[in-house]
């Protein structure tokens, strides 16, 4: 166990330079992008040059870029991510308020995707070339090909508009339901903690459609990976041993094959999770989900530097964190890893 922790520690330290690189890169990128925030935030189209200059000075944009970078780094060091010009709030607060929404959505989507993808992958691997295999392949291809905003809208159209099963696809909770007292920011968890079954149900209903939309998109990598690694494991020697010594089919597949086959899936899971959290901005937009990705997109469109930089930093940190968790999980799942 100490070996695993040591490995995780080394991993963390070695990812610090990358984090720093991300910081500098986004900072510079924001500076070279077209659009002048001062003009954007000036009172109106007929604001005078003096007013714009004044805003510039207040935002620190009149200083040379290297100096701005140093100031920015100093602020980061003191935990100050700046203030959003659009919301008027400190970026840290904004992110803190919105991150649970994104995380809750992503976690649920990942859970749905795994619950679907792993059995589908196993089924496909057990009968390669069969109807099941082809059906799974078709589903995966569709999941990847259809953009999330299309599949999201399709789900809304069918389930909300035509059938009326799903609730109004806006926001995290039905506007008429009472918000549970905030503890973790995860509505499902908060509602459960408060013992408010009604609120929990309301939040869960809102969550199902966007989570399914997201899950559909990442179904393919997970299912295909499960299938491929399951296929490889099923032909390995120790599966033959299990068969030769009369272990039940169930045990051979679930304990011997699947546990080995899931090792690469853990790695993919980390990547999929990070991608979903940041890149599925479209899902957040379609379902008016108050998450961090849509927040960052809005900020980007209005040349609001601080939120975008904060968002990128957050994503990079989460990416590092997720990799660490994957490393730890892998170390626990595969005893061979802990040697190094």
């Amino acid at each position, binding site marked *: 166990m100490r070996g695993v922790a040591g490995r995780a520690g080394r991993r963390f330290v070695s990812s610090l330079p990358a984090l720093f690189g991300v910081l500098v890169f986004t900072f510079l990128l924001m500076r070279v992008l077209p659009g002048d925030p001062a003009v954007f935030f000036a009172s109106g189209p007929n604001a005078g040059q003096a007013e714009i200059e004044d805003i510039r000075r207040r935002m620190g944009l009149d200083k040379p870029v290297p100096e701005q970078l140093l100031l920015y780094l100093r602020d980061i060091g003191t935990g100050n991510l700046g203030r959003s010009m659009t919301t008027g709030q400190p970026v840290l607060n904004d992110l803190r308020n919105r991150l649970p929404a994104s995380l809750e959505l992503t976690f649920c989507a990942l859970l749905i995707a795994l619950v679907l993808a792993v059995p589908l992958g196993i089924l496909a691997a057990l009968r390669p070339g069969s109807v099941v295999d082809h059906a799974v392949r078709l589903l995966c291809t569709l999941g990847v090909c259809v953009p999330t905003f299309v599949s999201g809208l399709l789900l809304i159209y069918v389930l909300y508009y035509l059938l009326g099963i799903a609730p109004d696809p806006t926001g995290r909770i039905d506007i008429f339901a009472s918000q549970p007292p905030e503890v973790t920011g995860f509505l499902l968890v908060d509602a459960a903690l408060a013992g408010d079954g009604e609120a929990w149900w309301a939040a869960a209903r809102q969550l199902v459609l966007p989570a399914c939309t997201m899950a559909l998109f990442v179904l393919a990598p997970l299912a295909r990976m499960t299938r491929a690694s399951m296929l490889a494991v099923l032909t390995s020697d*120790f599966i033959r*041993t299990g068969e030769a010594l009369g272990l039940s089919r169930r045990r051979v597949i679930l304990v011997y094959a699947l546990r080995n086959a899931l090792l690469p899936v853990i790695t993919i899971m980390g990547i999929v999770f990070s991608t979903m959290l940041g890149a599925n901005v479209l899902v957040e937009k379609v379902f008016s989900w108050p998450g961090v990705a849509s927040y960052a997109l809005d900020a980007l469109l209005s040349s609001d530097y601080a939120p975008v930089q904060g968002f990128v930093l957050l994503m990079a940190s989460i990416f590092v964190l997720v990799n660490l968790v994957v490393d730890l999980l892998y170390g626990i*799942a595969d005893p061979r890893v802990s040697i190094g």
Partner: protein
Amino acid sequence: MRALLEVEDLRVEFGTRHGVVEALKGVSLAVGAGETLGIVGESGSGKSVTAFCVMRLLDRAGRISGGRIRFRGEDITRAGRRVLAPLRGAAMSMIFQNPRAALNPIRPVGAQIADVIRAHEAVSAREARERALALLEAVRIREPARRLEAYPHELSGGMCQRVMIAMAIACEPSLLIADEPTTGLDVTTQRAVMELLAETTARRGMAMVLITHDLGLAAQYCGRIAVMEQGRVVEEAVPDRLFGAPRHAYTRRLVAASPRRDSTVAGLVGEREPETVTSSGRRLLEVAGLRKEFGGAAAVEGVSFHLDAGESLGLVGESGSGKSTISRLVCRLLDPTAGSIRFEGEEIGAISAGRFHRSPWRKDIQLVFQDHGESLNPRFSAFDCIADPLRRLLGMREGAVLRTRVEECAARVGLPRELLGRFPHQLSGGQKARVGIARAIAPGPRLLVLDEPTAALDVSVQAVVLHLLDRLRREEGLAYLFVSHDLNVVRMMCERTIVLQAGRVVEEGRSEALFAAPKAGYTRELLAAIPHFEPEPEAVLE
């Protein structure tokens, strides 16, 4: 008496990309209760397919197209899973080659043994664990209580095979099929494992089918031996008769090709002994005080030896003895921690391994690898494989000169010219070995380092390749550093032999003298562990 296992006229087909291939063409065998039957033959003879048929472990492509398999009188040729599952492991079980891969890598071995017990008997987890512990003791694993929690990668190959045996005998089956159980293990480990198998089966009254390519092994442990060739049993007899007076031409060939204590390279292929080469006496390689550490532990320690031009020196030892490390150090693929390597009086040990390919000595020291398939670039045709060192080391460019040289090299190793356009996967094992050797001699080396060059080959192919190597050395005046775990091969191929143990030289001397009268206890132990099939051998060894 009714036999325990009867195989009657068994036929098996494999559906491949090139149509249906018949792997078994009417195999009939019978094993009585408590009997030990050996099945010998070369790769592709169908011996493993026969075993897999009995256990019904054939992969999807294989299909039993005819014949019958009866176990305890019951026809199981087409039995379904429901009939087979209670039989497998409980009535008949199987152990495999490469024991480490045959165990689940991420499950403690104790749990794996318990899995087998609980698959057949309704016992509690605790009881299964206790029985697993008793089984580990029975297969003589030291500190069995601690090993219960060990994972396969934490155990040696020999220990993994013991665990595998423990799993196979856990539910007291009456038949044990051992498919090349000791291939890839050291000779002393092989002996310990085989003795354990023989003793276990005898004590429990189990019948055993031992599948092996090693005639000596079969002779030593089996009451009856069946010889298979191309999907047929060509001869079946008790060992003394089979090896003393083989009747079938294939058996005779197989017996002749297997190295024995007194065989010679020429004798293996049925040729007359050539004249012995006299060493030139010119010093080619001088190694002194060689030391190599990996992570602080010395893999090679204080090794010194020399090699004259045209001489052949054997390095023998078990896994972990440092023989491969030494060969890599001499080839300059690894940097020594200390010591000197002098080639023709020049210190080449100081040139770092990463830069050695640019030194003028690179073309003088070449390597022949163990795995001839893996050591050839799969995207290179045989021609390109042989031409590659010529292009890189001698700077030969495309054209008639290059082609002539490659063809000449191919001719020297007996590789037909029309095979030069083929890719490695289109060549047989022996042909790949020839390409590997041609590649090594192409730049005109003076020292050839051969790292187990025939370990992966069938005996008949091995005989031909050894003969080729021996002839090349005589004709070209090459010096060989010959690394092998097979003592008989080293004795035939090398004038002098060095025996290594744990990175140190245990014994060194002229091969005939060393093998006839070994001085070190370790050498005696190694020699005694070699299974043999020739009659009255014990007198020499005891």
